[in-house]
């Protein structure tokens, strides 16, 4: 039976519990906060830090809307408990890449190619695209598809998104 939105959130909103103090690097700065034991990294970013670029789509690690860079790798932040973060861990969200030239180029390419419709998947899409271009500046079509295979988009049909990544790679 499909769960309603409010029911899905129940697992996350735990009753009053002891909170845990964590320290980690967020967008290049060492930060400290208090979290409940079962609070996802995604929820923590949105509630404790008001960083709302990272979205919750499915909450099950399938849609990729919550993708961010964890220790340099794309990760589904809905499947990481905030309490497990350590001082050596680095989290980079889309907000942390605001002034990054590559991210700027990607965002412009997404707009120019008309790759954004409703926009909900886009924060995750551009993070995955960013990681790809960081490591493969001239990706093949297969590499683009592979890199974005964990990000679902229900509007665009993907081809414009792929073209946007190609354009961002070309316009260095």
């Amino acid at each position: 039976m499909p769960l309603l939105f409010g029911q899905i959130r129940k697992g996350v909103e735990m009753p009053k519990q002891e909170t845990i103090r964590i320290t980690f690097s967020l967008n290049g700065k060492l930060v400290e906060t208090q979290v409940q034991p079962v609070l996802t990294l995604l929820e923590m970013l949105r509630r404790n830090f008001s960083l709302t670029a990272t979205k919750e789509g499915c909450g099950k690690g399938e849609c990729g809307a919550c993708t961010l860079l964890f220790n340099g790798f794309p990760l589904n932040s809905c499947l990481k408990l905030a309490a497990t973060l350590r001082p050596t861990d680095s989290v980079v969200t889309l907000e942390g890449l605001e002034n990054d030239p590559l991210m700027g180029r990607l965002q412009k390419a997404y707009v120019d190619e008309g790759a954004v419709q409703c926009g909900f998947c886009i924060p995750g899409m551009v993070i995955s695209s960013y990681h790809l271009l960081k490591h493969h500046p001239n990706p093949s079509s297969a590499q683009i598809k592979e890199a974005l295979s964990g990000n679902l988009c229900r509007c665009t049909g993907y081809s414009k998104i792929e073209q946007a990544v190609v354009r961002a790679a070309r316009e260095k």
Partner: protein
Amino acid sequence: MENPISIHCPDSLDDAVAILSARPGARILAGGTDLLVKHRNGMLPNLTDFVDISGLRLQEIERESDSIIIGSGCTMTALAQSPLVADRFPCLAQGAIQVGAFQIRNCATIGGNIANGSPAGDTIPAMFCLDAMVRIFGPESRRTIPIAEFFTGPGKTVLRQGEIIESFALPDRRTFGVFFKLGERRAHAISKVSISVSCFESGQGRREFRIALGAVGPTVLRCRKAEELMTAAGWPPPSADLVDKASRLVMDASRPIDDIRSLKDYRKKMTGVLFIRAIDRLNARSYQLNNSGEE
């Protein structure tokens, strides 16, 4: 309202095992890609504690005398990118890279994939083919179990409460192998049928074979009769007839059921088809030149 759940992030195996032993409702949290989804879907009613084992330094892949030791905390991405794994165990590298999508592979661990005990786990057929030994750390002692004896049913293993898979020991030998899976789509698909075929040189023109099937039985299954036939026939296989005969033995070894993902008859048939494709791939000139198994 459900009971509050606690979380522990121990720094040593001893501490982790102590918490797990003291708290019967504690569950090991590794990559979290299955466990947190189950929790969210309300499938863990007796859960009291998460024990995060990411701080136990179980992520290494290293050589130890005549074995390669793969830490249970190794992620799918780490396995897929390891030169040692690519060189020795191509079927495992291919299994790892077909799990979930990139974001999932960056946190999902091989220990989790094995301990979950799903017959459709994509690293399990390869681990059968590679004669993996499971090294378990428990409250009293360590024990080592052959992978074939580790699973007792769908989602069931010999692991007892308080025990943690520390690592896997694989014989250090260069194997040739492939892993194929059939799913609804390429990424994020749970296998309907999977196969790992692996072999190593055992003499001039001879190869010893291992064949294992996923998602077509209560656990991953070895196809010993087909292995014997392929091993006895020599390499490359003398005829297409022989490979056909072996493919029928592979189909006979499968014990599929109808379920949400696929149908029994289709699954059985596809085990044979995938086996023939696997042998073709192993025998292809491109494979001989490049042991990565990629097209």
